[in-house]
């Protein structure tokens, strides 16, 4: 079967006898965003996002104008083109942050879940402690330590996502450790590392995939929140939150900047959340049929 055939079959899979509409809708939105991010330079040539020689404010127009369909930003750049290029930045931040959380969170969760005892207790209390702060506040603190910039913001929103990851994986590891096939492997003398690699991780994979998808959504949202507060990445990266933040002082004169940018963020977050929910239903064997 071709790759596309497989993807099609995966999306068509029924959950509790009904079409998995969440999965399809999420996959379509996320797929479109990824396509836009990859083809950004083709869709919107770089020159469109260069500041024009003279700043001017152009409103959006429904008529098919040769350019600036979505209006201009504060200084006359093509807002639509900026959002296209911002897709690349925002998705990159979300994806990289989710990877940070996935790697560290899974490691913490697996160690905690398999080691038990004091190690488990200490690790989980540290995670609890990090969860005693609203994520955005922790991210603000981390950014004020690391400084501003794309890499720093990515790290900050990734780090704050670790605790929920770790808890989830630990919970799954605890359940799996009591399963007969793991007990059997253990009693046959399989080493702990081998048990983790061959039994635990593969069985945590669906859960990790689902959580990663949700984490991308929160990471994009938190990064945009940081930018909104003026603590995030610079406008030159066209990160969505930065564009929105840049336009908020012109809310009355140029409301479309804030409106359109926020709508794009909203659609992206909905896309990742739907994809996550769809994957969760699809990958949970109890939900099949």
């Amino acid at each position, binding site marked *: 079967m071709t790759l596309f055939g497989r993807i099609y079959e995966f999306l068509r899979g029924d959950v509790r006898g009904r079409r998995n509409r969440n999965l399809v809708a999420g996959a379509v939105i996320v797929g479109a965003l990824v396509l836009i991010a990859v083809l950004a330079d083709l869709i919107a040539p770089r020159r469109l996002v260069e500041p024009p020689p003279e700043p001017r404010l152009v409103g959006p127009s429904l008529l098919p104008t040769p350019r600036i369909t979505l209006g201009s930003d504060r200084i006359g750049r093509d807002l639509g083109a900026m959002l296209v290029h911002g897709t690349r930045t925002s998705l990159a931040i979300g994806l990289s942050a989710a990877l940070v959380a996935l790697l560290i969170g899974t490691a913490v969760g697996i160690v905690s879940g398999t080691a038990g005892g004091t190690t488990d207790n200490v690790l989980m*209390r540290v995670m*609890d*402690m990090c*969860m*005693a*702060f*609203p*994520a*955005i*506040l922790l991210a*603000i*603190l981390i950014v*004020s*330590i690391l*400084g501003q910039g794309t890499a720093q913001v990515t790290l900050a929103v990734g780090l704050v996502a670790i605790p929920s990851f770790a808890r989830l994986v630990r919970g799954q590891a605890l359940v799996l450790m009591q399963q007969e096939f793991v007990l059997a492997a253990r009693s046959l003398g399989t080493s702990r590392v081998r048990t983790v690699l061959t039994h635990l991780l593969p069985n945590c994979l669906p859960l990790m995939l689902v959580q990663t998808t949700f984490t991308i*959504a929160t990471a994009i*949202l938190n990064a*945009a*929140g940081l930018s*909104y*507060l003026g*603590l995030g990445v610079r406008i030159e990266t066209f990160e969505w939150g930065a564009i*929105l933040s840049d336009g*908020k002082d012109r*809310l*009355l004169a140029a*409301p479309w900047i*804030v*409106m359109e*940018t*926020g709508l794009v*963020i*909203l659609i992206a*977050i*909905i896309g990742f*959340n*739907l994809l996550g929910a769809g994957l969760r239903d699809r990958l949970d064997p109890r939900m099949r049929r």
Partner: protein
Amino acid sequence: MLRFLLKRLAASLLMLVAVSIFTSWMIRQIPGDPAKAIAGEKADKEAVERVRKEYGFDRPFIVQYRKFAGRLLRGDLGRSYQTGDTVAHEIALYLPATIELTLGAMLFGTTVGVLLGVALAYRRNTWLDSVGTSASVVGISMPIFWLGLVLMFLLSYKLHVFPTGGRMDVRLDPAHVTNFYLLDGLITRDARAFWDALRHLILPAVTVGTIPLSIVTLMTRAAVIEELDKDYVKTARAKGLRERVVIYRHALKNAAVPILTVSGIETAYLLGGAILTESVFGFQGIGLWLLSAVEARDYAVIQVGVLLVATIFILVNLLTDIGYMLVDPRIRTERT
């Protein structure tokens, strides 16, 4: 039950100590020289050194933390370097705003959410259910700083229904007793001040409350649907009880635990949302206060402020756990 309570309380206290060490350590990692920040930009080297000695910034972290914790336990929260005001006074000024905001948001999110959730559960698989569920999914994904701006643009700038920001019309300047502006309005029997404070509170509270509203709606819907399929509901209906009684007295009561769980989780969204929303509406609360402290590297304020937010969070979680015991007899007996 008492033993469980004490154990929970001890755990919370321990967590608070850990959080205070963690925040103190984090604050020290913020680049920049706190002594220089206090002494001012134009201060010469000697003055900076003097400040460094005076505040103990040259001492090791453990010594500084012990000093901080000691002062904290004696009720001395220190002074803001930025304003010179005591941190305790600033908290008394700004915390009420954030509490009003989050309580308002919670009230909005929980009451509307439960009512909506019950309505959707009762009409499951109808068009109303589809619309409500879809709207909730959108709500959960909402970038709330954007929602705040949209509400402000439409309802304040365009339709002039609500004021554009702040906590109160500056021209009113009523007496403040507690700094809870709504409460102050009631205490001083100043109807105009109360009304004005309420009008300033509504948009921010709706903004902060939207994500909790969506979560509560979905959770209530799911919990009530599960209960409606159970035998005791059939029995209640067979007895000829009115639908309203069946749903609100029977089903909703048993669905309370999952709904309560969400309310606990909500706090994180509420406090996080408050920071962003206060910034959108210029609503002078803890969030804005902390943000300006971070910008000015006002270590005394950041340290106490962050600790304050974590304390509120831990307290609410403790209260949620106690709430569980009150609504669910199974939990009550299990742990005694």
